[in-house]
């Protein structure tokens, strides 16, 4: 269990107020709620993209909130995916290994495994700019996993895909997490995501957590 405390943010007309939140350190925890409920704010604050004085996030005995965003070693997939468009899929994924200074042979092994798991072979050397939505989404996931993160944070990662591709992507995510059991926080407002992926669900409304299940 990782424990988040004092997740506060006051935007004037909107207040995020989460004094205490226990996030499971196994499986997928889905944070869900309507638009404007504060899901993305929680995501950005946990990543350290915005300041949150007083925040503590204890994970395996260490307070991640005291670390700089890169030191938190979180794997992240944004809704916009943010692939590097001028690099190939392979270069995008290996960039994460290079950033984390993963040894070359280890990175190559990991790439091979992710390629197989996420079925990337056919477009591995294609420039990211030219990939389809589903392919981009898989590359973004592989890139997030490549750096061997402590926790995986996914912000509406399937939102730009159509129903069939979403289904496929969910299946692939479950396969990957089955092989690499990394605790995952999934932000979504899609009931299907909750139904098919979530081991734990947390509802957020108007900046407050409502239900745990």
């Amino acid at each position, binding site marked *: 269990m990782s424990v988040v405390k004092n997740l506060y943010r006051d935007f004037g007309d909107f207040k995020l107020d989460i004094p205490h939140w226990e996030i499971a350190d196994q499986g997928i925890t889905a944070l869900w709620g309507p638009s404007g409920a504060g899901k993305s704010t929680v995501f950005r604050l946990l990543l*350290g993209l915005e300041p949150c004085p007083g925040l503590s996030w204890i994970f395996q005995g260490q307070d991640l909130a005291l670390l*700089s965003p*890169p030191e938190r070693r979180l794997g992240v997939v*944004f809704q916009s995916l943010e692939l*590097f468009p*001028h*690099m190939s899929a392979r270069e995008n994924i290996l960039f994460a290994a*290079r*950033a984390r*200074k993963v040894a070359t042979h280890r990175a190559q092994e990991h790439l091979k495994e992710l390629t197989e798991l996420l079925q990337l072979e056919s477009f591995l050397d294609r420039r990211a700019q030219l990939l389809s939505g589903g392919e981009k989404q898989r590359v973004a996931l592989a890139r997030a996993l490549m750096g061997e993160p402590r926790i995986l944070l996914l912000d509406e990662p399937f939102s730009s895909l159509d129903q069939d591709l979403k289904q496929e992507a969910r299946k692939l995510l479950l396969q990957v997490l089955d092989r690499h059991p990394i605790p995952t926080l999934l932000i979504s407002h899609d009931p299907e995501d909750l139904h098919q992926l979530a081991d734990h669900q947390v509802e957020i409304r108007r900046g407050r957590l409502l239900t745990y299940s």
Partner: protein
Amino acid sequence: MGRGPAPALIHHFLAGLFVLALLSPLLLLLFFVGPWAWPQPSEWLEVLAFTFLQALLSALLSLTLGLLAGVGLLRWGSKPSSSWLDFFVLWPNLVPVLLVILASMNLVTAWMTFPFGLWAIVGLHTLLNMGLVAVALSRLIPERLGGLAELAYVEGCSALRFWWVSLWPLMRRDLALLFVLVFSFCFSSFAIPLVVGGVAGTTIEVLIFQKLRSVRTWGEALPLALLQMGVIFALAFLLLRSGPGSFKQTSSWTEPLGRWLSPPGLWLLGLVPTGIVLSGLLTGLPQGLQQWKATPEIQSLLLPLMGGSLLVGGSVALLVYLSLMALAYLWPHALLQKFLRGYSAPSTAVTGFGFLIWGSLSEVMVFSKMALGLTLIYFPSLYRWMGESTLNPLYGQWQVAHLMGASSGLIFRRVVWPQVAPQFALISGLAAFWAIGDFAFSSIVAPRDLTLAMLVHSLMGAYRLELATLLVWPLLLMGLPFLLWYQLQKSHSYVRR
């Protein structure tokens, strides 16, 4: 989102150096010039009022004509040819200002005595800026009003009523921003009032130049320069506070919108400035050729001066490119970005004299000063115009790379540099073209004509407009590759806008 403490410190230090380099002309003047003194109020208050008046009239005229032309341009929608049309409408803004001044003088003097003074300044500022306003509005109007216009059209609203009820109220903020932008440009413009202002058309910038020409009045130039920078800074602050209109509609209803809102030939208005400049450059060419044949001393100067122009242009391109890359390495740096958004380069006169009062008059030194000075003058506006919009779309990628733990060096080398390099090369090319056509700054720091543009300016001063016009063509030819590159580059960029 911050970097680690050590890298952040290095970044702040480098950003500080960057700011110091940009401010160096002003700092040099502050260091070398004796005690400050305000000139007589009767001397500068009237000039200040005139500067405001010419900037106000120029901005109003540019905005009115630019709005009409911009609505006309909507008719071309997103056809491939519309990109070329935009290019030709923007053309007077892309070429060195010397060409616009000379062409207008040439064209007008073929019919009447040139009307030096307020209306000449206003006319030339309008020629320079209305195309920019037109292209900006032809992109903003569908963005702001596309969906709404579609609905209004379907529901039977008349075009005139739509102009009055929707276009004006909803575009008011964008129009105000464009007004402030053009006003600031005209307020601090130097070359145009210097050449066509005449005795009665002195602006603050020209007064600063006059004060700096005599050692005895150097101290009076500084408060004026600070006053001018203060006004520009206040305007930029205003611009920053209001920000662009936040609402955006997605609609592809551009072409029909243009057909609905504008009469058929209105888009041609956007091409008028280009037409004026081009016909002005063609007027008097036969006489220019005759004068050329009769002046062997000018013939012998052509090649060395073209070499000088290319040297200055190439050096400015290199320095602008390196400065942009240094900025890209430091990016994102909130304080530096804020500074650059509000900062306008010290005036041409201040920069010129800041560079004149130190170092020797050897050719190497003078060329170096020309390259450095022009870089410092062009960089802030080029960054605001194109540099910032090249970097900002990469912020999401920067965040992801940073979260992955990539160092600043790695992010710069692998993520930022490959994506911004083509656009930065283009910006540098444009700076080179402007530098090739500069005469105002160069005339202050160089003891004699070292570039073709300086010779053209000297010929204009001697009323040999036809010969000057002929010599402007090699300048245009030297810049042509940059202009074509500009046009081609626009459609080949990884950076999403």
